[in-house]
């Protein structure tokens, strides 16, 4: 399973990769290799983290055709969308990515939710909640164990809240639709 988190520096993109990777490798006992690519800028530059989760040892450390793309900026969406696997899952931040054509994808206003919760810096954790619920690459339990270890202690509660926010958003979405989120087959070129 190849996952790419992409956006701007400062959005917690790399941290997201580490959290999911840690959950998968330490608590779910799989192999997980996380790699990052970023420009020199601390914030605002294009930034992406690449996570590979597998049952066996990972040899090639980079993502080539991701199964899941999480795009938290327009630039990231445009740059990495063409590489998404044909039936891959695309998750975007509703406010930050504008799609020219509609298509099958999952969208969550993560940054807006984070701002509502009090700090835009936790937008990535909202996204992770949504991601966990949607893809089930990692278990909820593993994520809930990992998050407190991965953030400063004074922010643990806020981060868990953010995770739930994202997680619940997805489950509500399912409820409203009445079926699990279906991944629509090869229409990737449409958007």
């Amino acid at each position, binding site marked *: 399973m190849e996952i790419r988190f992409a956006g701007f520096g400062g959005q917690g993109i790399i941290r997201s*990769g*580490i959290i999911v*990777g*840690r959950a998968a*490798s*330490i608590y779910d006992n799989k*192999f*997980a*290799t*996380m*790699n*990052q*690519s*970023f*420009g*020199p800028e601390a914030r605002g530059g294009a930034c992406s983290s690449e996570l590979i989760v597998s049952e066996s040892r*990972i*040899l*090639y*450390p*980079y993502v080539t055709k991701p199964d899941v793309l999480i795009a938290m900026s327009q630039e990231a969406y445009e740059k990495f969308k063409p590489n998404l696997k044909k039936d891959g899952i695309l998750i975007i931040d509703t406010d930050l990515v504008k799609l020219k054509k509609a298509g099958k994808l999952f969208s969550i206003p993560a940054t807006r939710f984070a701002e509502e919760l009090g700090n835009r810096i936790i937008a990535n954790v909202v996204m992770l909640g949504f991601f966990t619920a949607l893809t089930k690459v990692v278990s909820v339990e593993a994520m809930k164990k990992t998050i407190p270890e991965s953030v400063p202690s004074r922010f643990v509660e806020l981060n868990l809240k953010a995770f739930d926010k994202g997680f619940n958003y997805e489950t509500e979405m399912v409820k409203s639709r009445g079926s699990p989120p279906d991944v629509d087959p090869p229409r990737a070129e449409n958007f």
Partner: protein
Amino acid sequence: MKANPRDVHTGAYYIDGDVAAAEGALAAGCKFLGGYPITPSTEAAEAFARRAPEVGAIFIQMEDELGSISAVLGASWAGKKALTITSGPGYSLMMENIGLGAALETPFVIINIQRGGPSTGLPTRTGQADMMQTRWGSHGDYEVIAISPDSPQESFEFTVKAFNLAERYRVPVMLMSDECVGHMTEKVVIPPASEIEVETRRYYDGPKDKYLPFKPDKNLVPPMVKAGDGYKLYITGLTHDEKGYPILNQNLNTRRLVDKIRLNADKIIETKEERLDDAEVIVVSYGITSRVAIRAIEQARKIGIKVGSLRLITVWPFPDKKIVELAKKVKGFVVPEINYGQIVFEVERCSHGNANVILVPHGGGSVHNPDDILGAIKQVAREKKRSEGIIEYKTGLEHLVFDQNKGSRPDLSG
């Protein structure tokens, strides 16, 4: 001797190669880090700085890389296991004092998280282009040891190994990691201290007035003392005799600096061999490239090419004999490197015209596409005649070069 439990954070972690290397250093009993911030090695220094008070280690951020390596030399003579961490540009600045370290036979470890070069190059992306510099970068004749890890787990283990080799041979040891391994985050299992073998410094124990700082034992390595133990040491970077006094004769000591490593090479060298028994083609690789190469090797085996892997864990001293032997048996060597040819020259040298040598070059910035390595394996397997000199495999990026040659501007967006 075993590691001190206080220094070892036993457990399973999800950390990157840089942090794993810092943990390895601490586990090996390193008590001094002189560093200077440089991407992509900084995470290691940060991790060390956080842990330093806990294990009674010292972290000092010096004013530049020249300062940090000088401080490391000093700390080593004060009896501490010492370390510095850097990347290409900093490594270049350290060249003068690497020579001093070799001349003074000072044990210390340099972790070089290689990035794309030359000059400032690609700070946040990978490269393997400092390999020859490690061997030849300082002026004058000397030999060092270099080992190259391919994963965060190995960053931990090999850092311990590096310290052990440094202490055993009284020589600077380089851990030649790279940005990809350094920033790659994976599970790292740190064993209990009782399972980590740590070499202690071999101190001189004879009468004080008889001590000669550069009088070797049968392994050509002199025992050491530390400053402040009453030996009234005099050591100098000038060419010196056994007492450490400057003399005008190179043969006594300088020759030994080289032989100390060359003659002990068999004991130092470590390689990892896979499927060499029936191999017609051998992929010679090191560091992250060796990991990527496995994928190509598996694919090649699937299509019936008998290919094996020789992974250089110790890059310097170079396993001359191994290559000489293998060259007689195989059709060719495939050498993928994230540079335009460095270790491949060594492979060519040692193959003595008995096998073809094909280089899979890569300018840097990312690791090889396994397909390129596979392509090179196929090319060697097909090759009928022995060619003179290194064959350069044409990678996918060639078309860009032709684009520019035609005058049209290629797409540089990557």
